[in-house]
Each structure stands twice: as structure tokens, then as C-alpha cells.
């Protein structure tokens, strides 16, 4: 077992230089709630750990003048729940984020860590995707911004190149008549891994007709699915029974889950439809308020 080096740089440039110059396995440390568990279990054996929490940009959450948000990659879910602005504008995003773990885990777990750990069941990811969030990535060639759904590639793998890490996320302003929601199903009431997760963001016009929508499913595929057919099923409708039935069917058709002790393929597929119906109703209620 090689010995680990620990660095806590104060700027993005220093972090990139450390990352780009490292030879062995190098890991970013945000909340550490995945990383340190994996380190203890000897699942990983990095030569260098870079704590990004001393970099101000990773630790702040700002509402910009145009109503959009810039969210530091290492900002914690419990901190977000204490904010009146984002909890009101994007309750679904905050729900997914704050569902992660128990009290002390919530105080540390970040969106950057949840996304880059790249678990198909990561709770914050479906809501981030339907909200249209993008990730600001820093690297040796400067900065680039990509949609959140393009970060995870497969379980445990991301599209980030050598020397790159996520500094922050952009979350658009809440559109007029917009609402979002995230729901997951777990076998217990707390602290378990999602059997299915569903994120919904939609916009209603004054008559209550859905003018745009996005639906995503977590834990039913190797990465979070964006189900366009489910969104199409409800756009242009007032969420009548027929539209909800089509939404349910589209989610069931898209789900490609695995069998494990938490749920069978049949069960997860059925639940994908059920959760989508429920999440759409919650998002629509929020859009109206």
C-alpha cells in the first residue's frame, strides 16, 4: 500500500496544477462521504488526495441577477436546505441533494461528489438533469461547461479528462409557471440506495397546460435516463388520466433495471411509472404556486 499525499490548495489554478502534474491515481476530496469510505475499504489506493474545500468558488451558492444560480461543487445539501431562495425556486433539486445520507452525511455530501462518484442511483442527479444544470469544469486547457448528463459515463466512470475537476454548477432561473420534483423509492424510510428515482421539471401556462417538460429516471440503467417520450406524453396536456397513463407507459418502456436484493426487474419497471406519475403531480402543484 503506497502512502498518500494530501493537499488543500486555495485556488482553482493550484488544484489543476496538482492534478495535471500527478502521476499515480489522484482523487478530488469534497465531502469525502464516498471517497473516505472507499479509502478505508481499500477499494481505492490513491497517491494524492486534493481537498477542494479551501477554494471559495467550490463552497459558495450564489443567486445571480438574472435569477440563475451558481452552485459550488463542494457545497453541502444541508447548507442548501437553509437557503430560502433555492429551496423555493428549485425544491426538487434540493430534495434530491438533501436525501443523501443522514444528518452528518447531509452536512458534507456535495453535488460534485454525488455526480462524479457516478453511481446510477445517485439521488441528486435526476433532478439536476431535468433542471437543465451544467457543470463548469477547470483543467489544464482552461475552463469548459458541459451538461450534467454528460459527466457520468458508466458506473464509477466520468468523462472528465486528466487534470480536470468540477468547480461549480449553473442552475437556470426558475421559469414562470415552472415546478420541479424528485422522488425515490427505497426499501427503508431513510439511508438506503434508491430502487428507482425520478426527476421532473415542467412549465404550465395560465390555463394549466404543460408547455415544456423533462423527465428523468435514476437507478434503472447504467446511467440516469432522460425519457423524452415521457415528456412528450404530457406536453400540450392538462395532465389528464390519459396523459398520465402514457407517461407511465413511456417510463416503463425506457427502464432497463437490474435484478438485485432491493428489487426485481418487474418491480423496478412498474415503480418507474408510478414514481413518474407522482413526481409530475407534485411538480405541477408547485408550478401553480
Amino acid at each position, binding site marked *: 500500500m503506497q*502512502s*498518500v*499525499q*494530501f493537499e*488543500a490548495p486555495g485556488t482553482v489554478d493550484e488544484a489543476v496544477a496538482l492534478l495535471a502534474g500527478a502521476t499515480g491515481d489522484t482523487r478530488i*476530496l469534497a*465531502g*469525502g*462521504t464516498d471517497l*473516505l*469510505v472507499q*479509502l*478505508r*475499504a481499500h477499494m481505492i489506493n490513491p497517491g494524492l*488526495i486534493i*481537498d477542494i*474545500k479551501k477554494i471559495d468558488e467550490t463552497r459558495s451558492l450564489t443567486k445571480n441577477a438574472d435569477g440563475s444560480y451558481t452552485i459550488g461543487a463542494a457545497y453541502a445539501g444541508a447548507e442548501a436546505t437553509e437557503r430560502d431562495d433555492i429551496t423555493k425556486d428549485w425544491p426538487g433539486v434540493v430534495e434530491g441533494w438533501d436525501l443523501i*445520507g*443522514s*444528518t*452528518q*452525511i447531509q*452536512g*458534507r455530501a456535495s453535488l460534485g461528489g454525488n455526480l462524479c462518484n457516478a453511481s446510477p442511483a445517485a439521488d441528486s442527479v435526476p433532478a439536476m438533469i431535468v433542471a437543465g444544470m451544467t457543470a463548469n469544469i477547470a483543467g489544464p486547457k482552461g475552463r469548459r461547461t458541459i451538461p450534467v448528463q454528460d459527466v457520468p459515463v458508466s458506473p464509477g466512470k466520468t468523462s472528465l479528462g486528466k487534470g480536470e475537476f468540477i468547480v461549480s454548477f449553473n442552475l437556470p432561473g426558475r421559469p414562470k409557471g415552472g415546478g420541479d420534483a424528485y422522488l425515490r423509492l427505497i426499501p427503508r424510510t*431513510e*439511508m438506503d440506495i434508491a430502487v428507482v428515482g425520478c426527476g421532473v421539471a415542467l412549465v404550465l401556462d395560465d390555463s394549466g397546460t404543460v408547455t415544456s417538460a423533462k423527465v428523468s429516471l435514476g437507478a434503472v440503467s447504467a446511467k440516469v435516463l432522460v425519457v423524452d417520450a415521457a415528456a412528450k406524453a404530457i406536453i400540450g396536456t392538462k395532465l389528464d388520466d390519459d396523459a398520465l397513463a402514457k407517461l407511465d407507459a413511456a417510463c416503463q418502456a425506457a427502464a432497463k433495471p437490474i435484478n438485485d436484493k432491493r428489487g426485481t426487474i418487474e418491480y423496478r419497471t412498474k415503480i418507474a411509472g408510478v414514481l413518474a406519475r407522482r413526481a409530475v403531480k407534485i411538480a405541477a402543484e408547485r408550478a401553480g404556486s
Partner: protein
Amino acid sequence: MPTVSMTVNGKPVSGEVEARTLLVQFLRDQLRLTGTHVGCDTSQCGACVVHVDGESAKSCTMLALQVDGAAITTIEGLANGETLHPMQEAFRNNHGLQCGFCTPGMVMSAIDLVKKNPKASETEIREWLEGNICRCTGYHNIVKSIQEAAGNMGG
């Protein structure tokens, strides 16, 4: 090896650690403060909860080097001489423990709750404790203890 310095229970301490050393290992193995327990290796049980700059945190889920310069309070730092902290006293009065393994983490977690939410309802207490696992008590007396302490802590 890098050196880490912090304040533990009001006293400045420092020591050489490997980068992979967890805060809980530093507290237990180097400082011999064995009141903070380790009950799992997956960050789930909460036996290791301490306060880092006044906030409860799982000391098994932090590197010692990460808290360089911070103020740490462990279960050993709560009592004032022979006088127990009101939370400790309440656990004693209400049989809030049996084997006592989870107790240090429960007490540290509960103090943070009462500080943040002095009027926490029974449901809020139970929710707050979702990351503290007790194999013995069935939680009932733990909740009672915290309710009593909240009153005595000026909540």
C-alpha cells in the same frame, strides 16, 4: 510525515500523521481519547460523532489533515470537572443507554440538534438521529433523554 495541529477539548495538540489517517484514528490512537467510538466502516453508525468547529461530524469520514487548525470537541470535553453536561446527565437519568457503545456519538449529535433546534419535536429528534444507530435501547429512552436535556439546556 505531515504534521497536524488542532484544538481538542480546549487544548492545543499536534502530531505527525499519515495523510490517510482519519480524524477518529488520530483522536483514539494518538491522543488516546478513546471515548469516541468506531462502530462501522461505512460511515453509517454515528458512534464516532464529534464536534468540528461546533458542528457535529462523523470523525471516521474526515482525514485528520482536513481539520488542521479546527477546534474539536469530543465526549471527554463535555463535563465540567465532576459535573456532567446536561445531555450526559439526561441520558443517565432516563436510561438513555444500555451497553453504551453508541452513546458518545448520540450525545454529541444530540447536543448539536438542541443547539440548532432547541424546541425539536419527538419526530424531529428521531429524524435527526437517522445517522446514529443503537442496537440496545430501541431509541425510546434516547429520545426522552434529549427532550429532558433540551429543557435543561435553556431551550
